[in-house]
């Protein structure tokens, strides 16, 4: 049993039900990392709202954070559910889990508009390039030329959700791999600490339908083609740790809540605060089939949808009656205007 965290809870308090996903499914590993991250950050599980669409990935919220409310909604429509929930209660920490089919195929419209609004949410796409739950058809993130087990070849270009998000003005965009514990943990913690929309595209192999030769979302492919941009570190706001790097070799991004994301550069001139460069880098792959991972873009201070709407600090859902139902004199005034 693990040590209690900042608020006195152990990792057990962050666990969920037993997974019904296939053994070895990347999604299971992501669930573990989410548990770790929320535990590490010392967040009350009751503050978290888990939201998901439909798919194997979207089922996974049942397998972590059992003390958090969850809404496993409709295929491709998690963003709107999440938006409503966050507007109703801005104190919730919204954790959206989706799949590549759920987001890039049926859900791309809601994804675009969620990003545009910069809703405070961690939006994780568990990306395996196929529709796992319906038995392995290509999704819209499948790479051109990748193959199904049946031999079918994908002729269409993939949607790069990270590039798309950056183009749309997303304020925190990262890509990771379910098998990269360290990177994914740090990225999740930073993304949770971000104040606006954090989009994480996490390559998460489907061992049953897309982990064979010819797949570009397999464990083997990722082993060979994962191209991390940085070594990520994360220092939570409550910890007062100084991290030293030789000058020029690292970047530190201070997030809105005071926590710090440290990026030891692996690729020299990459600065995740430069939107145009990020786009450029994503458009022009350095080598064939490379899967660029790391924090691709971050703008820690951009106004969120809550700022835009100018909401009161308290959750709207539980404002007392006297704050949401105007008095009789107001009705009198309204009626007077209509006379």
């Amino acid at each position, binding site marked *: 049993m693990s040590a209690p965290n900042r608020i006195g809870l152990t990792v057990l308090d962050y666990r969920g039900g037993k997974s019904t996903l296939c053994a070895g499914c990347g999604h299971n590993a992501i669930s573990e990392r989410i548990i770790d991250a929320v535990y590490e950050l010392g967040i009350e599980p*009751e503050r978290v709202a888990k939201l998901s669409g439909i798919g194997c990935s979207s089922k996974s919220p049942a397998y972590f954070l059992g003390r958090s409310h969850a809404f496993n909604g409709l295929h491709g429509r998690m963003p709107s*559910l999440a938006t*409503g*929930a966050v507007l109703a*209660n801005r104190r919730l920490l919204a954790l959206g889990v989706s799949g590549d089919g759920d987001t890039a195929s049926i859900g791309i419209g809601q994804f675009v508009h969620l990003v545009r609004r910069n809703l405070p949410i961690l939006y994780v796409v568990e990306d395996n390039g196929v529709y796992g739950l319906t038995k392995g058809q290509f999704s819209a993130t499948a790479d051109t030329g990748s193959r199904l087990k049946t031999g079918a070849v994908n002729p269409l270009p993939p949607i790069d959700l990270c590039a798309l998000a950056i183009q749309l003005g997303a304020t925190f965009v990262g890509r990771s791999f379910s098998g990269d514990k360290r990177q994914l943990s740090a990225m999740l913690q930073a993304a949770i600490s971000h104040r606006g929309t954090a989009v994480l595209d996490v390559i998460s192999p489907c061992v049953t339908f897309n982990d064979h030769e010819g797949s570009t979302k397999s464990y083997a492919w990722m082993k060979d083609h994962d191209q991390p941009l940085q070594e990520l570190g994360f220092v939570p706001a409550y910890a007062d740790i100084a991290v030293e790097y030789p000058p020029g070799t690292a970047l530190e991004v201070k997030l809105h809540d005071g926590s710090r994301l440290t990026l030891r550069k692996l690729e020299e001139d990459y600065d995740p605060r430069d939107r145009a460069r990020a786009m450029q880098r994503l458009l022009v792959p350095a080598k064939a089939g490379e899967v660029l991972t790391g924090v691709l873009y971050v703008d820690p201070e951009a106004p969120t949808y809550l700022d835009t709407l100018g909401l009161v600090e308290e959750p*709207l859902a539980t*404002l007392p009656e006297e704050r949401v139902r105007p008095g009789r004199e107001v*009705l009198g005034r*309204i009626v007077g205007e209509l006379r």
Partner: protein
Amino acid sequence: MQRAPIVNDFAIRVATANGSGSQSSNTVLLRALFQMGIPVSGKNLFPSNIAGLPTWYTIRLSRRGYVARKREVDLLVAMNPATVAEDVAALRPGAAVLYDAPLRPAAPPAGLTTYALPFDALAAAACPEARLRKLVKNMCYVGALAWLLAVELEEVERAIARQFSAKPKARELNLAAARAGFEGARASLVKEDPFRAERMDANLGELIVDGNTAAAAGALFGGVTVLAWYPITPSSSLAEALIGYLGEHRLAPDGKATYAVMQAEDELAALGAVIGAGWAGARAMTATSGPGISLMSEFAGLGYFAEIPAVIWDVQRVGPSTGLPTRTAQGDLLSTAFLSHGDTRQVLLLPGTVEECFELGWRAFDLAEELQTPVFVLSDLDLGMNNWTAAPFTYPDGPMRRGKVLGKEELDRLGGFARYRDADGDGVGWRTLPGTPHPAAAYFTRGTGHDETSAYSEDPEVFERNLARLSRKLDRARELLPAPLLEGPGAKVGILACGSSHHAVVECRDQLREERGLETDYLRVRAWPFAAAVREFVEAHERVYVVDQNRDGQLAALLTLDLPPGLVPRVRSLAHLDGLPLDARTVTELLLAREDQP
């Protein structure tokens, strides 16, 4: 041929072009009559475009207080060259027409009284600035009508002052234009028609308001906290009125909003946000029309099955498909009652008056939260966008009823809960809100099969039991929903209707009584699933005519499905749909045709 005067019992139709500013003139005329204490109603018949196409506005004066559309036009104001010929041709003998002089109708039918006025010249005299003349020309016919019909000029002036209260210059110009019209008419016309307005004492304390504004005001007092919407005629003005009210009355002292308004990217997202917000405890609503309802189907089913409170206003327009976006219908009753695949049933509220639009505006939230289900309020374009006289709105009769929600304290006491357990025998479980700081507060909401604790389940019995509870829940809701209103009893023949059909039915019953000696009782249903009183009404009558503003007799269909089969033979459907607000004569004719059938 001097005809007996017809006082406060005729209809004026004004024919103009869309976007020509006639809306203000017509409102001023309506208000002036209203201020004279005459029961009036106004119906706007406008095209689905922004400017240039024909528009007709009909004002009905009715001594007896009838506010449904009157099928026959008594006085036409012809301002639109594009339609003057057909507008005049449609008049019956005895009618009168006031036309813009250049539009002299070629061959008017016999028996018309005609008046011509050179409105351009009148406007020019009243308005020195040439480029503004187009805007005030239409106020000239208001002045002319005032003279023709003996509408008090002071009331016209008061109405103008009110209409342009924020724009002094426009006010002066319009005052001048109305006076010019009045003087022009006095100088050159000879009154030959029998129509006259005369002061009465109706309307005391009353308002003029459209149903959408009333619904918005209602929602404001319902404590709405989240509005997610996507524009669509004829519901946009509901959302926009609500946004106005919220901005005015719901800012905290520091200027922050106690509400959130999301203009969604489409209707799927709008209802998604409403359901997400309802789940998280907000009073959330959306407003839409037919195409939006279709797009909301999938979320509506989720709302039903996961039991999430939500309020959806459907201001109905003519379908199928895009149909006639600016015409009225009751065409979504059946498809909304069963909206979404599988065995889904939705709660419908059916306002019939603007007062009810206000009341259901707030009450819908109480019902949605008490029943934990989406509540669809089916208004229509006639009710929502036309101006109606109304009694002042009544403040909600009690505190907000927020349904079964367990907080931290209750959980401390109970130790835990099961979200979908029928703990109280009414089919409604207890819920918790996300964020409730208690380790046992969480549950996992889903649209898949679930047991009482909301855990995933494919067990056949668990599924069947849960679905049966949902069915029971809505059955029990019958008496919680707004009760049907009965007028009667005692007659053998019953009439059953809902929504804006009400106004035609009221008048139709008088016609039946006065013209045929046929007494009828009348039940206006205000919600579905129906209360027991609906069955009792059918039981108490030999035959029941069901009035529908749609092609397929959808209210009759809902009734047929709800009644014990033995009562179904008493049901007779009177369905009519052409996009115009229902008029009494049509109902009377349809009903008598059935009565007279062998």
